[in-house]
């Protein structure tokens, strides 16, 4: 049995109800790239992003066991997955910061395997507050709407908008300072 390459959220939820394992495979294929991309910017090492992208779905799979068919049909898939992923990113970011500091003497050192430009953006993003970083990455890297980010982070929509706006302002300031050097 093969999972289809492209599926809508409605199709995924329908298959999750009728064939849990096939639906889960469709869920992974459809949503894991987005979770990985976002996690790559919210954690310090690609190994952390891989772990987050894998553990998010393992936890989601286990959670599905306790969900009724009606609850599965009502799921807002990306918000549900990102709520799990963001918690994992928070755990991994703290862990990695300690690891990185111990090994290289700095919390913002990028992995050797990270492309230069992405590493620079990781450094700039790391200087934002956690709330601003989460909001900017979820909005502009993971491409989530403000309403879903509010649901994921548990913050009002207006506050999320402000987090995104201030985060972008700080990134712009950081870029201008780099150009002046």
């Amino acid at each position, binding site marked *: *049995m*093969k*999972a289809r390459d492209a599926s809508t959220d409605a199709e995924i939820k329908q298959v999750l109800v009728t064939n*849990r*394992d*096939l639906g*889960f*495979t469709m869920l*992974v*294929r459809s949503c*894991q*790239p*987005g979770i*990985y*991309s976002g996690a*790559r*910017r919210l954690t310090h090492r690609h190994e952390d*992003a*891989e772990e987050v*992208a*894998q553990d998010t*779905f*393992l936890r989601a*799979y*286990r959670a599905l066991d306790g969900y009724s068919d009606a609850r599965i049909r009502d799921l807002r898939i990306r918000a549900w997955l990102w709520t799990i992923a963001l918690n994992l990113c928070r755990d991994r970011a703290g862990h990695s910061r300690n690891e990185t500091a111990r090994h290289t003497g700095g919390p913002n050192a990028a992995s050797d395997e990270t492309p230069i430009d*992405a590493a620079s*953006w990781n450094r700039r993003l790391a200087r934002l507050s956690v709330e601003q970083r989460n909001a*900017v*990455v979820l909005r*502009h*890297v993971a*491409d989530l709407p403000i309403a879903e980010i509010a649901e994921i982070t548990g913050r009002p929509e207006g506050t999320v908008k402000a987090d995104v706006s201030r985060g*972008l302002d700080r*990134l*712009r300031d950081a*870029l201008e300072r780099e150009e002046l050097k």
Partner: protein
Amino acid sequence: MNYIEQALAGLAESPPADLERATVVGADAGDLVAKVDSSRGPVWIAWSRTGITGLTPLFVDKTVDEFVDHHRRVAYEADVIPKLLKSEIEEALESGRSMGLSFDLRGLSSFQQSVLRTCATISNGTVRPYGWIAEELHKPGATRAVGTALAKNPIPFLIPCHRVVRSDGSVGSYAFGPEMKKELLLSEGAIAL
């Protein structure tokens, strides 16, 4: 969209190619599949974290894609088959004894699972009629249903559905043809020429 927003959108990265496989197999929502060269000829073997889920000779499915298309669960080609699993399968196919193997029959009806697990107890060198399985399951009237369940055996050879014959002693039908069933039973000494 301004320059910063464009740059952030451009930071999207594809995950490593094997992450989906690791995730789905890690959750036990999908299987791995590999080719095993055995005394019964080359076969595709699929397994989950729970046990063996499928076996198909290469003369039925020539490529791994064909096997995956026909397999009842999502399956990914394995880089390697675990050595212990490989040696256990090779030994079971060689000896005709598969009692020590774990089978994962998820996705089949409970009746079909019961039929197959009862069938798996039939020893090498012996045959049983379809009615024997029905009686073992306390459903003496379900002989035809037993035959239907055996016809859909996803793990032939290891679950020896070829050892189930008609009550008149004739070999009866087989997924790979009655001639092959007769050959298997002859090779096991269960019937004589």
